[in-house]
């Protein structure tokens, strides 16, 4: 049974076989599989969002040399549970002049796009809700649907702050999506595939951030910047710049609808970090150093999904670190930074990657 901790694909296969064995109807099997995957992901997502909120607060507090939430549970670890309960208990308000359908739909779109994206992520071998051969592209597309939710929220609230915040968010996300996509593309050039499992397997010999040396590092830097902007996090959080727009697009939201935005935001942080970990840092692949067999054996002892979450956690910490390190950009600086510097740079990086690949001038191959 311990083996299943490592060979998760065998675990999935065994479960599959068990299902088929005990339930004859293929329909029911499929339905159970779907329900199980959805339930698992939902649980994961909600727990993770809570943890992330707590972590964010703690990290922020410690950066500012204070303790942060300490009352509920040891070191306040149940603080977010309490917060969630409070949010759920609150009254759901819809502004009188809002477009009610869209107003209700907006947080759903945001959350759904984030939630569906999680389904494409490879947590461990075989441990992936949806396995398509174009996973990377899909996850980019699906997560970019979130911006529609933000725009819808801003527009349907019938509030100037909301609308402006939504417009800013839209402009920002669309712009930075380009850089993020191009940065990933310059590594895809090396990988030759956009199937997540294949991507991870292609890093058997080494992580792409090293193997694609200069290009990989630069792509990682660009992707980190762009994805931070995509998530509307500081230093790119002018979307909800409190001093200018009160709370941006979700000014009018409360209760569970607000919670969905909140959830989606943290999920997005998790997703971009997961993509980054998968593409640049080998995903669930343990860290290996050629020639250091004992060390490699030692690393192999850690299960793949732990590797994955470890890497993701480290990257999330990096993103949170940003938040308390850099000052917020002005909206024109933001757009100029993307279109005049980041995007040309990522285009050049892509070209460089193409040159490196065609000349075969990189490590481990």
């Amino acid at each position, binding site marked *: 049974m311990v083996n299943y901790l490592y060979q998760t694909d065998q675990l999935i296969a065994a479960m599959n076989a068990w299902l088929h064995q005990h339930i004859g109807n293929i329909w029911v099997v*499929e339905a159970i599989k779907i329900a199980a995957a959805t339930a698992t992901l939902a649980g994961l997502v909600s727990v993770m969002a809570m943890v992330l909120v707590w972590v964010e607060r703690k990290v922020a507090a410690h950066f500012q040399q204070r303790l942060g939430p300490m009352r509920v549970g040891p070191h306040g670890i149940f603080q977010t549970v309490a917060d969630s309960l409070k949010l759920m208990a609150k009254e759901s308000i819809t502004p009188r002049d809002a477009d009610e359908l869209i107003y209700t739909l907006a947080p759903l779109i945001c959350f759904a796009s984030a939630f569906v994206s999680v389904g494409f992520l490879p947590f461990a071998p075989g441990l992936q809700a949806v396995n398509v051969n*174009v996973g990377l*592209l*899909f996850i980019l597309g699906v997560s*970019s649907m979130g*911006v529609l939710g933000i725009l819808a929220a801003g527009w*349907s609230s019938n509030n100037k702050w909301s609308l402006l915040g939504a417009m800013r968010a839209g402009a920002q996300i669309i712009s930075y999506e380009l850089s993020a996509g191009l940065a990933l593309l310059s590594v895809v050039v090396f990988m030759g595939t956009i199937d997540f499992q294949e991507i991870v397997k292609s890093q058997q010999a080494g992580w792409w951030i090293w193997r694609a040396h200069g290009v990989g590092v630069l792509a990682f830097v660009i992707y980190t910047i762009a994805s931070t902007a995509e998530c509307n996090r500081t230093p790119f959080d002018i979307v909800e710049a409190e001093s200018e727009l009160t709370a941006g697009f979700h000014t009018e939201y409360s209760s569970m609808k607000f919670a969905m935005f909140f959830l989606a935001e943290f999920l997005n942080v998790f997703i971009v970090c997961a993509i980054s970990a998968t593409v640049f840092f080998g995903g669930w692949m343990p860290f290996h150093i050629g020639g250091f067999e004992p060390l490699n054996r030692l690393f192999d002892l850690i299960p793949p999904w732990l590797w994955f979450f470890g890497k993701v956690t480290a990257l999330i910490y990096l993103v949170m670190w940003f938040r308390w390190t850099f000052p917020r950009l002005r909206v024109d600086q933001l757009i100029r930074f993307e279109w005049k510097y980041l995007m040309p740079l990522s285009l050049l990086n892509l070209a460089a990657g193409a040159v490196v690949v065609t000349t075969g001038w990189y490590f481990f191959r």
Partner: protein
Amino acid sequence: MPFKFFFYLIALFVLYSAYFVVTARNLFRSAMGLLAVLIGIAGMYLLLNAQFLSAVQVVVYIGGIVVLMVFAILLIADVTQKVFEQSPRWRQGLIGAASLLWFSLLAGSMLSYRFGAAAAAVDKSGSIREIGRALLSPAAGGYALPFEVISLLLIAALVGAVTVARADADNGEGKEGKA
């Protein structure tokens, strides 16, 4: 059976959304309907084993075109403007009938035609490798020239859109705050 079930599910979803697109009294709602239609079509592509096209549909159509439209709607429409101009009802009825007739013609022709059996070959649309080869192959059966033409078209559209949409500084028509 499951595929057929999914097909009908998606088809109903798409058709209802499409109907919503063409009848909704509110532009933004139309756009949301379009979003649903596009997602449904992406699902259709998945059913047809065309994962790459499905992904492209999601990335470009939803992430690009619909967002662009929503942006334009944000620029020109107001949430209070729930009812926008409608064609007179007789026109709607007339055209609805004509559309139905047209549909019956199309469907009749399609159902009455006996399509030949599929050649026994592997479906290529799922593999990006095959699509990439086809797109960039200058040889016969390749699409390098259309590909280049499309790239030119996109550049021209980009420049043209920027030029057209930019507020004219001269005649003071740049009422950006209108939105």
